[in-house]
């Protein structure tokens, strides 16, 4: 399995950043960065990463079961993560979440039929002073209102 030249260079550098023999340290970053490129964690990717870091496949599986950002299923091209934790909840985070569900016709961790959007209700994303907030893939959107969310969804739809 090969990755883009950029990612290959990053991996090579990364492995050298952990003590000799302890390259397993690179496991979680490697999985996340690879997932960004492949869209999901596949069996092939697990094999590849375990080979490159000389770790057991089960050690990779162990980590996959723990970290919420690593996922084996394919998600929408735009994975919208809406925060409903306290700071967001106080200023309309839950309303925003329900609005998004109805707008897209999907629930938590579901993907639209066209594969364009997926939704996830997430815990605090560190945007509390600019709440309510959401993340589209890795882009933060702050002080979001239902109207702003509608506009965002429309503009992302237009991008395809």
């Amino acid at each position, binding site marked *: 399995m090969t990755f883009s030249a950029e990612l290959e260079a990053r991996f090579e550098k*990364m492995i050298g*950043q*952990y*003590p000799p023999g*302890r390259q*397993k*340290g*690179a*496991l*979680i*970053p490697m*999985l*996340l*960065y690879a997932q960004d490129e492949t869209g999901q964690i596949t069996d092939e990717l697990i094999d590849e990463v375990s080979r490159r*870091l000389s*770790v057991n496949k089960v*050690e990779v599986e*162990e*980590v996959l*079961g*723990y*970290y*919420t*950002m*690593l996922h084996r299923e394919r998600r929408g091209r735009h994975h919208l*993560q809406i925060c*409903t*934790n*306290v*700071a967001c*909840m*106080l*200023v309309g985070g*839950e*309303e925003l*979440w*329900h609005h998004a*569900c*109805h707008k897209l*016709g*999907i*629930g938590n961790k*579901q993907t*639209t*039929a066209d594969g364009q959007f997926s939704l996830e209700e997430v*815990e*605090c*994303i*560190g*945007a*509390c*002073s*600019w*709440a309510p907030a959401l*993340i589209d893939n*890795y*882009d*933060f959107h*702050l002080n979001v209102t239902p109207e702003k969310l509608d506009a965002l969804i429309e503009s992302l739809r237009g991008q395809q």
Partner: protein
Amino acid sequence: MLFNEPHPLEVKVLTKRFEYPQKDPIWIDEFLAKEGYAGIRKALEMTPEAIIEEVKKSSLRGRGGAGFPTGLKWGFVDRNSPKPKYIVVNADEGEPGTCKDRVLMENDPHMLIEGCLIAGRAINSNRGWIYIRGEYRYLIDILDKAIEEAYARGYLGENIQGSGWTFHLSTHTGAGSYECGEESALLESLEGKRGNPRLKPPFPATSGAFQCPTIVNNVETYCAVPSIILNGGEWYAGLGTPRNGGTRMVCLSGHLNRPGVYEVPLGYNLKQLIEEFGGGVWKGRKLKAVIPGGSSSPILTADEIDIPADYDSLAKAGSMLGSGATMVLDETVDMVKLAHRVMKFYAHESCGWCIPCREGTAWLEKMLRRLDEGVGVTRDIDMVGQLSQSMLGRTFCALGDAAAMPTISIVQKFRHEFEAKLAGAKVFMPAPETQPLVVL
């Protein structure tokens, strides 16, 4: 860049280089022009003992939440150990309500690098990692660029500024776990494992990253160090209150006219902070309660907040300064719903490693949900308190305590709301209207 406004009452130490609006991060040329890396140049002339002594004098305490004296922590590391010594930055900002570290890293990434360098020099370390939560991907890009600049200009790598000393630094991403903000779980994650906490002792100072002596500090703690070295520990200590030196970033959120991240001296009056910096409670409503240090901290009612916001005063008031995340609640907030939401978070984030927390948070979440829906029984209210009490101090890490403490305080201080809700009284904060979902 994040929208942030200055406030005339701020005391600017960490934010001294910020401009408003700050269009780009402060890259190395601008950083050097504004006293940047002067702290490490000075530290290179000092002995490790003198650096630690200066940090001790500053009475700097950990800004992540626990408030442990930083100089003391650094002093625990055996500098002459034959093992490598490591520096780890906890940038896994996840405590609900907290959004300060990102402001520092986004605007002034080199300040963090400089703090790491000084800490590295103090414990005779040659390597460090900045552990950043996965959601902050854009900050990894900013920090990677800043690290590259520092390597190119001889502030990282071999023979730093001709001193013969080597220090390497890199970023390391998390992948979605609140628990990894706990230092020993963070170290597990850094080693490529599940973020389960370690049994302590040994503490990281003896056996940390890769079983070597390590110091783990919060982003803001490292960022304060260059100014301490440059201006002296006594100067920094003088900015705050006794045993609570310096300034800190506060994240104001919730029902305020002007939420935002501000830098204030430690010991600033909490009530004034909300009124002067936060612009008071929004919509002309009355204040009901304040969560002063992230969702783990016990809640304070409106008449308990006329106190200095420092570690000791808040502890005396039965709460904690925590991560400086101040969430303000107006009179319309349904406290049962709040207690439920807080517990839902901890139940979701419990790593499952030890039973009191794994089972306790899950059961509490169920009971609080039932109470929130108004269908519980009165006995449940007492049981929530008892179950929380029995979780306190009985878990591997502080997550169990973090879940129990706010819950105990909410039940204690707002018991009448739990009772009223069970009696079928009006729900204060209306639940959002929901319709059945159309699943495609």
